[in-house]
């Protein structure tokens, strides 16, 4: 017996459009395993995305799917959840979609602590449109719009999410495939806003302009930079230079938005 991914894939949709070695496919597999392990009902689960290579993901999968406008996935997802609080709502998107044009929607969805799961595939670049720099492109790196090196400081998506009020924040990489489904599943089970940042690779528009000649170089980078939070405590600042922490970075229980809003509805309709 082999693992049955096909059960969740729309017939005739494979092969997908992503480039050879693009990590988005690894994340899609992780999402399927997470949803399967949580036993979510296809008809009661909405996958929402904006625009970008990452945002193509929901279109391959057999759930209620919503492919919206660039950067607006969190806003549409909020609408779905408010209208149908019993639905499982999962946003799938990229770093450009979620932190550039959609940065405002992202931080406010975090702030409200609405019960959804947002998987953000951070490949450090606008992949779809040809490798323009995103707010997540490392300082000094090359993009099609920063041929002399990116002068901008870089967003740390997980820190941004924690600062904005998300109550579950976790990070892993496309190399750490088994951790992807575990963290997404934990996020799904968490009541409130769960952000799962997956450090991803775009060999086509980021790798080839920087030091990563091949898909394998990009994968090795993801393997090398990840440090589990538990291990980081025993490391010196020097050893942690250039590394990123992986695992559950933050978790707390706080009032969830739909529940708070239900109280407003009850009050407005005259209940004591």
């Amino acid at each position, binding site marked *: 017996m*082999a693992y049955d991914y096909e059960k969740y894939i729309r017939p005739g949709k494979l092969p997908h459009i992503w480039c050879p070695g693009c990590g988005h496919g*690894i994340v899609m597999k992780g999402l399927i395993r997470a949803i399967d392990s949580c036993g979510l009902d296809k008809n009661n689960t909405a996958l929402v995305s904006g625009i970008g290579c990452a945002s193509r993901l929901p279109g391959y999968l057999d759930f209620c799917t919503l492919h919206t406008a660039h950067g607006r996935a969190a806003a549409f997802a909020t609408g779905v959840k408010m209208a149908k609080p019993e639905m499982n709502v999962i946003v799938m998107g990229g770093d450009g979609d979620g932190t550039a044009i959609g940065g405002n929607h992202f931080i406010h969805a975090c702030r409200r602590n609405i019960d959804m799961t947002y998987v953000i595939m951070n490949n450090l670049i606008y992949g779809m449109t040809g490798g323009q720099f995103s707010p997540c492109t490392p300082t000094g790196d090359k993009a099609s719009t920063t041929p002399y090196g990116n002068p901008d400081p870089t967003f740390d998506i997980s820190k941004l999410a924690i600062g904005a009020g998300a109550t579950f924040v976790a990070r892993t990489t496309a190399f750490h495939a088994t951790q992807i489904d575990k963290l997404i599943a934990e996020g799904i089970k968490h009541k409130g806003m769960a952000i799962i940042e997956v450090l991803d690779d775009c060999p086509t528009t980021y790798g080839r302009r920087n030091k990563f000649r091949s*898909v394998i170089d990009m*994968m090795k980078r993801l393997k090398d930079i990840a440090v589990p939070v538990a291990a980081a405590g025993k490391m010196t600042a020097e050893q942690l230079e250039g590394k990123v922490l992986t695992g559950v970075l933050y978790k707390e229980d706080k009032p969830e938005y739909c529940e708070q809003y239900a109280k407003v509805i009850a009050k407005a309709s005259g209940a004591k």
Partner: protein
Amino acid sequence: MSGTRIEVIEKYCKGCSICVEFCPKNVLEMDGFLAKVVRLQDCIKCMQCELRCPDFAIKVYVD
């Protein structure tokens, strides 16, 4: 290993070589732009090739 079968779905494989590079037992090789199973007897069923294949192109069957 008996009972184990690995299938490469040729029409999905894009030849990225991730499965080949990170197999801990060196079971796979590239044959041009396709992954190929060459040392099935060494496979430890760790599933890493399948988990990391971005293209749903490699399946490990275990019974």
